[in-house]
């Protein structure tokens, strides 16, 4: 019996030992994060790790980040774990990143529900966390001081799109279909306001469970109301189902918008039905903002399609922001770097970042439209690569 107790204790201790050996030497800048590489959100972020590795390589090829207090450039290392789209796994790994891996900075996990949970870790340990793809306003309405997102609030998601529609003045009525999830609801809340401002009346407003398969009822409703624009706030799986059935049942609105469907997989799944749909995208090749050269290098190394993985790309501005913070503060001291981030305007590949209070940022996606199977940015005039075609 004593043997067994000893064995058990030994096994437990050994597993702790294997689980993490902290590195102490400061000759590398460690950034930690988790990402939903597997699980429910994996269809959007499964390559996140690959992108981070590629960016690390690109950054280190350039020698790393210059730290004035040490008077040299230090390479970076991104330590990441797969949170399996599960908030509690993410929390556990962030605790590990802080206490075992002893990272210097934290990036927030992509995915609003996961970020919601993980940000409590940042706040509890007073460890600054820079959020990329997590923009739901609820995350930032808790008065947390140690989280900073790069994105503008989810409610601003389509503000360029509606600005454009308002100016054009041809769209008067819209149907709003919302997938019942944290992020999509946030976007929809914004759409209701933005549409009103653009003089567009919302004639159908339905929120539907994310795994709904049959859209006959909703489609029938929309057909009856006959709006100019159908706006679907959702992710690709839901949209693919909806669009297919809409097409089958003869719903062909003059404009169809899906908040996140720039991916190639959507175009493949819908075939010709994808022509003319609009949506939002964060970055297309050809945009020349921020450190686009390093991003292009990272994309070449990893072989990833930036339009397909537009969400995963949002962490790049987060990395740019952390880097700028280090450079401006001249040190690796977290407080100083965080203060620098909060008080400076930082150019990123997706636009200029500025901390506007409560942890909210300023980056927003740009409206795009599918032409001939390809994605082009249609607004604002400064960034556009294609013209908006209406009706489809």
């Amino acid at each position, binding site marked *: 019996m004593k043997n067994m107790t000893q064995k058990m204790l030994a096994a437990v201790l050994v597993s702790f030992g294997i689980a993490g050996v902290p590195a102490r030497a400061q000759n590398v800048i460690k950034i930690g994060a988790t990402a939903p590489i*597997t699980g429910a959100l994996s269809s959007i972020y499964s390559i996140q790790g690959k992108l981070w590795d590629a960016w690390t390589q690109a950054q280190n090829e350039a020698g790393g980040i210059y730290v004035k207090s040490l008077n040299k450039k230090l390479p970076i290392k991104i330590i990441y774990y797969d949170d399996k789209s599960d908030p509690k796994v993410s929390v556990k790994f962030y605790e590990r990143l802080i206490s075992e891996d002893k990272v210097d900075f934290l990036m927030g996990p992509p995915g609003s529900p996961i970020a919601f949970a993980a940000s409590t870790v940042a706040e509890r340990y007073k460890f600054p966390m820079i959020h990329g793809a997590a923009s739901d306003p609820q995350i930032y309405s808790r008065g947390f001081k140690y989280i900073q997102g790069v994105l503008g609030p989810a409610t601003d998601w389509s503000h360029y799109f509606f600005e454009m529609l308002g100016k054009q003045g041809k769209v008067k009525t819209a149907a709003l279909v919302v997938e019942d999830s944290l992020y999509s609801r946030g976007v929809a809340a914004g759409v209701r306001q933005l549409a009103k401002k653009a003089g567009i009346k919302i004639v159908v407003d339905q929120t539907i469970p994310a795994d709904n*398969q049959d859209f006959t009822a*909703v489609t029938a409703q929309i057909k009856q109301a006959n709006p100019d624009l159908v706006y679907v706030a959702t992710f*690709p799986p839901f949209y*693919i189902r909806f669009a297919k059935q809409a097409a089958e049942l003869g719903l062909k609105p003059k404009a169809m918008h899906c908040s996140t469907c720039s991916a190639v997989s959507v175009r493949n799944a819908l075939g010709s039905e994808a022509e003319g749909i609009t949506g939002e995208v964060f970055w297309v090749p050809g945009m020349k903002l921020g450190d686009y050269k390093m991003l292009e290098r990272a994309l070449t190394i990893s072989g990833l399609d930036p339009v397909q993985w537009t969400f995963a790309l949002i962490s790049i501005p987060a990395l740019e922001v952390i880097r700028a913070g280090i450079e401006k503060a001249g040190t690796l001291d977290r407080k100083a770097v965080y203060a620098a981030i909060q008080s400076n305007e930082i150019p990123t590949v997706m636009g200029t970042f500025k901390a506007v209070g409560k942890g909210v940022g300023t980056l927003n996606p740009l409206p795009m439209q599918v032409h001939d199977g390809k994605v082009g940015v249609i607004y604002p005039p400064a960034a556009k690569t294609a013209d908006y075609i209406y009706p489809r």
Partner: protein
Amino acid sequence: MDIFLQILIGAVLQGALYALGAIGLSLSFGVLKILNLSHGDFLMLGGFLGFLALSYLGINPFLSAMLAALFGCAIGWLFYQSLISRIVGRSFRQMLTTSVMITLGVSLVIEDTTSFLWGGGSTGIPFQLSNVELGGVVFPLLRMTLLTGTILLTIGLHLFLTRTYVGRAVLASSMNPIGAIVVGIDIRFVGMLTFALGIGLAAGTGVFYATLYSIEPFMGLGLTLKYLAIIIVGGMGSLPGALLGGFIIAASESYTTYYIGAQWSPLVAFMILIAALLIRPQGLLGKAET
């Protein structure tokens, strides 16, 4: 009234599709007493196969459905030989827990490996047919053709189960395995056949599914659970029962969505399941427990 009919047609087709996918589960549970939690994953695999067939070989979904079904049968046979046959002989109580473990394990392996190889993202088969509109009600041609295909398949299956010797053996075994052995049916062979057939059907249905809806690597488990609900409501081991169950669930989901709100439709399906389990566990058209 128009919308009511529209939804009804949708539900009939949806129900048929559900039934086709579910019947395999029903038969294998009846014959082998195995709860195959990985059933939905084979549907997903079939769908992916159909997608690849269209993208790379230009094969239309109706043809690729048959290919997928054959492929599914082969895989099902392999699955049976390597894993299921090892646990068939155990006690019933053990069978439940071990079949849960093994099929759950298989489900995880399939889902995760597919996600890894596919790279992510959901997809569907982009195949459209033009529509026919009669008196304000749209008859989606694609759906109608699929419905016809489903009906033909169902009739074919029914004939197989009731007219051929092998088919009758399958049916008999699913109703009363011990009785079947007593009359001399080789239940091992029948079990293997049933299992393979069930998975083949799932894969074939998967192609239709991918054409109408979307598929993604992790969809399997949720679908399997819904199919379980359908076969319980309709009756284990009964093909007409699966059709009826499928229709009931599909109709209740659609009408709930329209009249009450989409967020309540999953609830309705489960309430029906629980009610069925309590009031009539053998299902509407199933045989009572012996």
